[in-house]
């Protein structure tokens, strides 16, 4: 018993001593997490409740995703964002939704390393998209950096 307690105290002290370092290595993103990211991602909800979440994924769906170039050679991304309303027995109506959408363009493919594994050539600001229940919005964004043909769209709740 004594030795167990002694070892626990030593272990705790070791943790503290380790914590006394001025600097320590930053945690790196897990490659497998980045690899799992697609070209359109929703931001994780800020709160989980017993019935469902506050996730925008519960209400928003992507109706189409297209990318290409305009006449000037700029990369262009087009998304169909639809508010499909409530889909759960506890919420059949669903809210009107304000979204903040940001698109990052990259020179290199976002896979297999994941979009966040390299710097973006161009990143738009967070642009607001308002979706009343049942509405589909055509989100279109062009990139002024020619050659940045790969992209990732991040969709969040309205930033406040």
């Amino acid at each position: 018993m004594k030795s167990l307690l002694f070892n626990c105290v030593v272990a705790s002290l070791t943790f503290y001593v380790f914590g006394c370092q001025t600097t320590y290595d930053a945690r790196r993103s897990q490659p497998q997490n980045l690899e799992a990211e697609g070209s359109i991602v929703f931001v994780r909800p800020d709160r989980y409740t017993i019935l469902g979440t506050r996730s925008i994924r519960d209400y928003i769906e992507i109706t189409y995703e297209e990318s290409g170039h305009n006449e000037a050679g700029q990369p262009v991304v087009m998304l169909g964002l639809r508010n499909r309303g409530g889909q759960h027995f506890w919420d059949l109506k669903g809210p009107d939704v304000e979204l903040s959408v940001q698109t990052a363009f990259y020179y290199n493919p976002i896979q297999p390393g994941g979009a966040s594994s390299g710097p973006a050539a161009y990143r738009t600001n967070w642009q607001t998209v308002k979706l009343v229940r049942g509405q589909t919005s055509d989100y279109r964004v062009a990139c002024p950096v020619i050659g940045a043909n790969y992209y990732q769209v991040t969709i969040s709740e309205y930033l406040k």
Partner: protein
Amino acid sequence: MTKSLLYLWLLSVAGSLLIYGCSTPIDTSPSHTRILNLDQDDNIGGSFIESSDIRTIAQQFSTELLSLPEISQSPDISYIATQRIRNSTRYMVDTDILMRRLRLELNQYGRGQVRFLAQDSGQEVRTDILREREQSSVRDAIDEVARYIANSELVQDSPSSLRVNVLPVENTNLFNMNADSFASLLRTKIKNHAGDKILFAGPRASPTEVDYTLTGEFFAQSLKTEGIASSIEDLRWAQENPEQFYDTGRVDGESTVYGTQVNIGVPHRRVNIGPNTTYKIIDPTLWNSPNVTKTFNVMLVNQDQFAVLEKMVNLEEKISSGQERANFILTGDITSLTKASDGARSDYVLITLYLIDPVTNDMLWEYGYEVKRVTSRSVLYR
């Protein structure tokens, strides 16, 4: 206390500290103030445009403008002159912030395809720089004139030295320059180049004693009468008329010009104003040298009053704003439909930006941005 109890106590303290450390996320926000993302809602209220609107407009506008065939397919740089965006809404906002954000985005991602003209920025320093550069070009121009006269056939082929009288150059007030000083400078330069081929007469020489008279004038390449009101001329006038132009009794500052009048026995600091100073008070445009191309014409006149030699040089070029190079004018409007009732306000805001061809006056392209907001908390926009 046994060792076991001591270890248990230490362990519980360490465990408590660890658990306490897990209780709340680290708070890195500054006190009393919150740093917001530039697109984040500030939770203050208001139904007009927000920073996110300005940034979205800049992002969308710049990419669309850069993809216009008139710009993207042009082999040359497109120069853009801007005019302040007109705000027709009830809100007092500085529309320059939108124009500057547009300019920032286009300068950052335009890849040299577009260039804005600095219409209002840095113009005072620019004028100073150009004027200072012209100081050396004036010396070069005088040297060029002197060399031209000295190397002319009239001077070189003359069997004897030419006797030349010098008359003060006219209209030197265009430069705010002393006429005698300019004549002396020109005379010295000619003498340096011509050597014994030219003999300059003294100031009291009779016109009949010389072969030629050297004179000239400055003139402005302008449609209107240009000039500046020179206080130096007033002082000189006062010195030449000592009994008329020193201040005997008057002490009011409005009718006097300050300078030392030295030729009346006792130096006076206060001298009655002459016409130049009067003009200066009446017309502010006469305060500074006019921004026009100023040309110097020098002549060698014979005794029959015919100019036998003439040379013209530009001494000062007009400082151009560069707007004549502009391929496009960028401007726009902010308009709104506003409703208010019981403390609630709603605004539908339409922001349009357009490119105008300055030659044809065609509206080449227009960009529009719409937003509608309702708020129960009205705010003051500035």
